[in-house]
């Protein structure tokens, strides 16, 4: 097969995944042209990624929840509530950041676990159980912020999570050095990982991509990582939010694609009866997925609270729906068993790009909602159509 034939076959086989990246690039290019390059400026991209962070981590957890055929509506206000608790820990109780953050994450996981038990053990539909949770946490958030109103946080370390950047060591031509180094390490790790995977496959005697296409893929993706790093290095460098986002994605990507637990999650999603008959503990998987969702909701709450440097009475409003939208744009299927965490993050970035780009263009908020709704519907329509073609 020649180079282009193979590339075409590859794109065709992975049209759903690649379609999303192509859509993202298309959206970014459109906005860049319409804003005369302002959209792709270092400052805007940096802000955009930071604003996507707290939804992206929720979308990662939500993807797994939807993969096992459930839904979690409680995560928005849970994030708001736990953010407020974190603020209370830091300001009124004087607990250190290093204790507050793990404590909030554990609290989130425990609350998620309660959802899991209600759903898997007691048999309450996820929609209802988490709707109840949504009301409860909304009330709880009001309760803890009622007396004080907005709680302002003065802890610099905590606030850095949502606003700070990694130290630069030194600036070279106005570029952020450590960011460039991180980008370089990222590229090297990616290339090393790809090559060793390929070599490993070859020792097993399996078919691999032709070396031409393989090199093209390495160059293309390295160039994209490099370009994004270069853009970010032009402003303040990598923010802690982006670092956290990347860590979450890497961990969850590994978990879902390379571990027994990940397989079990997808098995439960694609056919719960068959999963049970295959010796998989469906209840336990449900606990784990909701526990992880709760923990990520806590992380989202920390990111958001830190970004605002304060806990407000309305924090977390509609986060859950943004996360669900991001997960669907990212290709998760409500029929269960299908969806990637990388897709969810891209979905969150697509939505953030739309908001950011339309803000730059001065599009009214009313139109923004309509356009975002249209994109969500369009993504799912594309998904359904490509799935039909394959089936």
């Amino acid at each position, binding site marked *: 097969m020649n180079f282009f034939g193979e590339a075409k076959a590859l794109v065709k086989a992975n049209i759903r995944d690649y379609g999303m990246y192509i859509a993202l690039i298309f959206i970014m290019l459109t906005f860049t042209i319409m804003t005369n390059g302002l959209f792709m400026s270092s400052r805007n991209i940096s802000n955009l990624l930071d604003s996507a962070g707290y939804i992206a981590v929720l979308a990662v957890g939500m993807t797994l929840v939807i993969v096992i055929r459930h839904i979690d509506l409680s995560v928005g206000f849970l994030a708001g509530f736990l953010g407020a608790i974190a603020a209370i820990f830091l300001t009124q109780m004087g607990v250190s950041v290093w204790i507050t953050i793990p404590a909030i994450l554990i609290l989130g996981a425990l609350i998620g676990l309660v959802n899991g038990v209600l759903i898997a053990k007691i048999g309450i539909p996820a929609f209802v159980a988490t709707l109840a949770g949504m009301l409860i946490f909304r009330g709880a958030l009001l309760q803890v912020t009622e007396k004080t109103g907005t709680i302002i946080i003065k802890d610099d370390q905590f606030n850095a999570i949502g606003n700070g950047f990694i130290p630069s060591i030194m600036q070279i031509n106005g570029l952020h050095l450590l960011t460039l180094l991180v980008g370089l390490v990222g590229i090297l790790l990616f290339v090393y990982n790809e090559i060793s995977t390929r070599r*490993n*496959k070859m020792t*097993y005697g*399996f078919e691999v991509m032709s070396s031409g296409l393989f090199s093209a893929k390495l160059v293309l993706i390295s160039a994209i990582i490099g370009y994004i790093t270069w853009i970010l290095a032009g402003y303040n460098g990598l923010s802690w939010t982006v670092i956290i986002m990347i860590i979450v994605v890497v961990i969850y990507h590994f978990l879902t694609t*390379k*571990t*027994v*637990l*990940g*397989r*079990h999650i*997808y*098995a439960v999603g*694609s*056919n719960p*009866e*068959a*999963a*049970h*008959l*295959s*010796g*998989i*503990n469906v209840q336990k998987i449900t606990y784990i997925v909701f526990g992880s969702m709760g923990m990520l909701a806590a992380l989202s709450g920390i990111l958001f609270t830190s970004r605002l440097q304060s806990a407000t009475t309305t924090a977390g409003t509609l986060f859950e729906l943004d996360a669900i939208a991001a997960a669907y744009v990212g290709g998760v299927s409500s029929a269960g*068993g*299908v969806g990637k965490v990388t897709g969810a993050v891209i979905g969150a970035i697509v939505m953030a790009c739309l908001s950011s780009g339309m803000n730059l263009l001065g599009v009214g908020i009313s139109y923004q909602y309509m356009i975002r709704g249209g994109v969500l519907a369009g993504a799912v329509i594309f998904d359904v159509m490509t799935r039909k073609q*394959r*089936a």
Partner: protein
Amino acid sequence: MSEYILEMNNISKEFPGVKALSNVNFKVKKGEIHCLVGENGAGKSTLMKVLSGVYPYGNYTGDIVYEGKVQQFNEISDSVKVGIGIIYQELALFPDLTVYENIFAGNEQKKGPFVDWNKTIVQATELLQKVKLRVTPETLIKELGVGKQQLVEIAKALSKDVNLLILDEPTAALNEDDSENLLVLLKELKEQGISCIMISHKLKEVINIADKVTVLRDGQTICTLDASEGEVSENVIIKNMVGRDIEDIYPKRPDKKIGETILELSDWTAYDSQLGRNVVKNVKLEVKKGEIIGIAGLMGSGRTELALSIFGNPKNYKIQGNMKMFGEKKVLKHTSEAIKAGIAYVTEDRKGDGLFLLQDIKSNVSAAHLKGISTKGILNLNEEVKVGTTYKDSLYIKASSLEQIVGKLSGGNQQKVSLGKWLFTGPKILILDEPTRGIDVGAKFEIYTIMNELINEGMSIIMISSELGEVLGMSDRVYVMAEGSVKGELTMEEATQETIMELATQ
């Protein structure tokens, strides 16, 4: 007008790859009870679906003459209009609605644009008297037992002025009293001039009630027996039901090496709390190393339930009795424990609860034994491909690659993937539930060959099957089940189609 209310002439119906009915002739006289019997898959239900319009006109060939007129039913409502009422095996009632709402569901009594509930209730009361059901029309369906629900179904059919009532295994889920009541009612309806077609597996009932019996086998009419001529007897019916020549598609095993007992059940009873009855009753069974146990019986005889109760009890039956493996007492509380103990269960419904249809071949094969391709919870995806390839080759799975989505494979290949998944768990006892249902002869032969290879390697197989040929051709011993209990254990010298069918229809 002719003496027949219904004549079905030369009915043929094909499904892709299978001829379900070929030139079936079936005639019902006015005011008679006509029973339709045959093995599972003989074509009884298909014939009734043709008659009631589930398969529309043009979907089959042949004529349906009803009350002297050739009929062309395009949908079920067309057959209802001329007075044909059908009651399916699975009741189609709404459990949370009242009796009167159910009787007139889809046939609401109206005054102008509104439902006239008073009229509805009055008419429902009359119909309940007609079927001798002593409950108020306001009772909710879910508060009634299955027997009474069956009567509501009949009342519902009568509400539409039926002349021909079709019942598909009406007594399958009923106890003896309820069955008896139902049969009495059918006889009374007959006095009122309503003809009736009844599909049944219980031959005693058939003999008790039928004026005529038509036997179907492999989609063909074998004979119609007349009770008034004294032609109807259990022996005659059974002989006609099973009289097929067994094709020689069963590969012989050269030498049998049957070893020690490895699985023993005694007083094994499983209670299904959702159905509220014992689905397995006092079963005693043993399996020896290197043998194939055939479990015969008709659908609903408790075979699958027995398998599930052994395989870690995924349906949460309340289980009494003892299970021993290799002489040691075992209590298996989850399918994962059963797999660990060396039991594998290849399900009857491979699409419903056997396979992950959206996933590819290799991840289906590894799904029940991910330990085998991982270390400390981390998968070795290359190892998975290797395992997948091994089973793809050794089980002759025909697919373009291991990445092929299982939902797109043919039935036979899906069955082999399912088999591969369970063989990868390294079982000592393999339970196969209807291993060759819906797959073609070539694939069947391959599966039988694989079974023999496994036996030679020292595995034991429990094979649940509705195909008598398969049971006789492959087993070393046969247990026959009916109504949840083992009605008999037969050696291969004793087992014939007739002896099995006799035990199964008890």
